[in-house]
């Protein structure tokens, strides 16, 4: 597993994403309500750049709570990615599709926020005061 600094947290606001190239792969980092998630930017369906789709929520029936199929609610606001081509829905947090969570999914990567070991080393050799940015978004592939 290797780690890659892809952005500072200021660059990717809530509801936004940033797409980067890591080892020849297009990967996007999403900020969902302050938490970061990374997805492979390829739709398992026909290969579209899935991460350039729209981010929103999803409409579901509440029948488990109310027993009424006609009562619908809008949930997971900001957590659902829709492919820009055919509109398939994926949960950004898991990469899993809504219609077939275990059979159709986008690859996810671990994301941490902090400082790279290499950056720490750089900071240590400096002989004058530096501001160290501990706010890097790091994708682990």
């Amino acid at each position, binding site marked *: 597993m290797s780690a890659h600094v892809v952005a500072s947290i200021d660059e990717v606001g809530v509801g936004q994403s940033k797409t980067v190239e890591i080892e020849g792969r297009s990967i996007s980092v999403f900020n969902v309500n302050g938490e970061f998630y990374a997805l492979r930017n390829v739709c398992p*369906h026909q*290969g*579209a750049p899935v991460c*350039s*789709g*729209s981010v929103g929520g999803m409409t579901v029936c509440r029948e488990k709570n109310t027993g009424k199929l006609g009562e619908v609610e809008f949930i997971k606001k900001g957590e659902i990615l*829709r492919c*820009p*081509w055919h*509109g398939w829905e994926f949960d950004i947090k898991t990469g899993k599709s809504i219609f077939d969570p275990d059979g159709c999914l986008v690859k996810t990567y671990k994301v941490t926020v902090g400082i790279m070991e290499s950056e720490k080393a750089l900071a240590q050799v400096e002989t004058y005061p530096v501001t160290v940015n501990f706010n890097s978004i790091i994708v682990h592939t």
Partner: protein
Amino acid sequence: MKKSNVKKLNDIIDCDVHPHPSDYNVIKSYMSEPWRSRFNGNGKRGIYDNPIHVNRLDSVTPHGGYPCSDPSYMREQLLDEYGINYAILLPRAFATKYPSPDFATVVASAFNDWLADVWLDNNNEDGRCKGSITVAHQDPQAAAKEIDRWAGHPHMVQVMMDSGARAPFGQRQYYPIYEACERNGFPIALHPGTEGVGPNEIMTPGYPTTYIEWHTGLMLSFQAHLISFITEGVFERFPGLKLVLVEGGSAWLPPLLWRLDAEWKPLREEVPWVKKRPSEYILEHVRITSQPLENPDNREHLLQMFEMMDAKNILMFSSDYPHWDFDSPTRSFPKLPEELKKRIFFENARALYNLD
């Protein structure tokens, strides 16, 4: 085709590409008064609009323009991306949504002038864009005149009308259109979009509730028209006529023909002008485009459908770019035997449209 400046070509003809005006009001400049002032600049059908998105979200032009409104960006994102030799362009004028036949004819005509101006006569040095002549079937006589107006145009390759209609297309009121197609050597293409809209009948018993219900049911419209074409004897009356079914699905064809053949054996008496088994008209007269390609979990089943429908001779690849249900030339089909692939992606359309 002039091959200079063209990147690698993969022997693909895309039979359903939708150019769009940069602004709907541009169409007004191809109209005279009083129509110009009356055209409301609204390209929507008004009902059954896709609730998610109509166009691929990544097809907006680099300058923020409407998807497929820039011939150069269309080449970059579609033709060069996949090595497509030719795109058959089908603008969506929705001319058949107007109750006034005069207005409908003017809208169709203006779209044809715009298509020729922006996509065919200009911005088309490589000749890769081929056009469809939009006609409004509310007034078949006027439609026939419009077809004649484009006779001999170097890039117009077919006539196109919406499959949303007031009557099945085999009926005699439409014959002036087929006559004009036949005399000018143009195939007639049907494309969905105005089913249940304006003066057109809906293809279901009553109006569907949702877009998914309406959109899935569009194939019913195509089936009804095809049955009508055959049982009314259109291909006997116009032996040179070719029919292209665009975006109406294709996997339904074999069982429909099995049933029609079976019905014809006892009921030929009722339709003596149907001189051959109904299925025998398909190879000579009908072509069907692939998108939206049916996609069974077991892709072997799709290959079996291809065998049953004689895809080798009648199926033609289409992507529907830039619409939301785009079929990628590289990803939408299962792996095909080389010969079958060549026929579906290139040869069948090349022969139909006389392309090189």
